[in-house]
């Protein structure tokens, strides 16, 4: 099977001391939702930043669609939503979308259409001209997600896109993620919520910078003989210690 992202023996040391990731080797499939799951401080964001090419890595290799992470050619194929929203709160949703559409190189003629389609996609059409700072938490997340949809990416890398959202909204977003994956987009989504792990096609569990498991949710449960991902996680961690 072909892979979207391949990590080989990836280690990242932050600030010369903190071992954020240690010898992580894993390959992700194409056109699936891939959950990067772990408690806070596990190294999820470092892993995500490494994949999008923002993180200076200490050793190892990362390839994304067979190109080294951070290659200029990848800037047209992947989009990235950071944990900190990564939209301008003093601009309206529409202004954000227009700006990022230009920066991602969308043709001028298509920007208007693209913007209204994206607004529809994330259900923010009636909030299009509201400043992001005046939106609710969930609406902000969706505005940021809309930016990540610009330019028909092959890979979307989303760092905790559902954190702090109410369950209904979270469910809606996961429906969207699943639909996008069915259209062939690969989504790498980090979360500290074990519940959300159930919604992923493929799971990576990390803790203290180390890969604990890589499997599908079903397999993980059956292999560990547990009923929930949380229990599986605890069992795996217990076995290692």
């Amino acid at each position, binding site marked *: 099977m072909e892979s979207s992202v391949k990590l080989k023996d990836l280690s990242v040391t932050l600030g010369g001391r903190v071992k954020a990731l240690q010898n992580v080797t894993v390959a992700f499939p194409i056109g699936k939702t891939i959950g990067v799951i772990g408690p806070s401080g596990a190294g999820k964001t470092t892993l995500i*930043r490494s994949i*999008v*090419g*923002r*993180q*200076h890595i200490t050793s190892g290799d990362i390839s994304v669609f067979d190109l080294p992470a*951070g290659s*200029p050619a990848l*800037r*047209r194929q*992947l*989009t*990235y*939503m*950071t*944990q*900190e*929203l*990564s*939209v*301008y*709160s*003093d*601009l309206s949703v529409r*202004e954000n979308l227009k*700006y*990022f559409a*230009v*920066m*991602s*190189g969308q043709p*001028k003629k298509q920007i208007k259409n693209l913007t209204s389609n994206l607004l529809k996609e994330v259900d923010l059409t009636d909030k299009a001209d509201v*400043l992001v700072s005046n939106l609710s938490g969930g609406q902000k997340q969706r505005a940021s997600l809309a*930016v990540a949809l610009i330019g028909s990416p092959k890979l979307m890398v989303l760092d905790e896109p559902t954190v702090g959202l109410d369950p209904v909204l979270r469910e809606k977003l996961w429906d969207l993620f699943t639909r996008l994956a069915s259209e062939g987009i690969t989504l790498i989504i980090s979360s500290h919520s074990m519940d959300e792990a159930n919604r992923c096609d493929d799971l990576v569990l990390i803790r203290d910078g180390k890969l604990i498991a890589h499997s599908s949710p079903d397999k993980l449960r059956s292999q560990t003989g547990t009923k929930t991902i949380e229990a599986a996680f605890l069992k795996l961690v217990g076995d290692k210690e």
Partner: protein
Amino acid sequence: MSPRKTLATSGRVLNQLRHDPRTLVLLFVIPSILITILRYVYQGNTAAFDHIAPMLLGIFPMVMMFLITSVVTLRERTTGTLDRLMTMPIHKLDFIVGYAIAFSVLGFLQASIAATVMLGLLHVTVLGGAVPTVIGAVFAALLGTSLGLFTSAFARSEFQAVQFMPAFIFPQLLTCGLFVARSGMAKPLQWFADVVPLTYSVDALKQVTTHTTWTGALTRDLIVVGAFALTALMLGSATIRRQE
């Protein structure tokens, strides 16, 4: 580099400020108010006021643009927008030059308003006229923006970014020749003033005030200020890394 992306960035920065009318009002009105206050501080000595007021147009735009740029670019770093941009197909200069253009436009507006008040309402005599006065002020704005872009890389919080103003700008302000002529200062301070940009920004305005023609010294001053601004922009560009 793409002119379209550069201008989109300028437009975006100006748009952000447009949504913040209070900042805009402060930016455009404060310099004029301060100059007006100074006029009445120098109630009994209008000659001294005529001498000092134009120099302030080499200082205000720099200080204000320095502050605003520091805070705005720091926000780009802390809110994830810079992270996002750095994973997009853009050149770093699209970002940096976009900022420089946006704040030069603001500097132009700010200087035009202040110059109108100064020349029109307060009747300050500037022998060189309004155009070179505003040009000098725009260079000061550009200088403030580029220094702000560069130094914001070293700030971890908005608190720190704001503190860089007294740290980087005040020493230049004290020695630029506004308070006493530079030739009267202690030698080491004269050397210091010779190598920092604000001196030249203030000197440019001094040239405009005291000469009816465009002098060689004015050209030199603007070249020095421009070169400092360009260098700071390049250094600022180097502090923005694709990979951190």
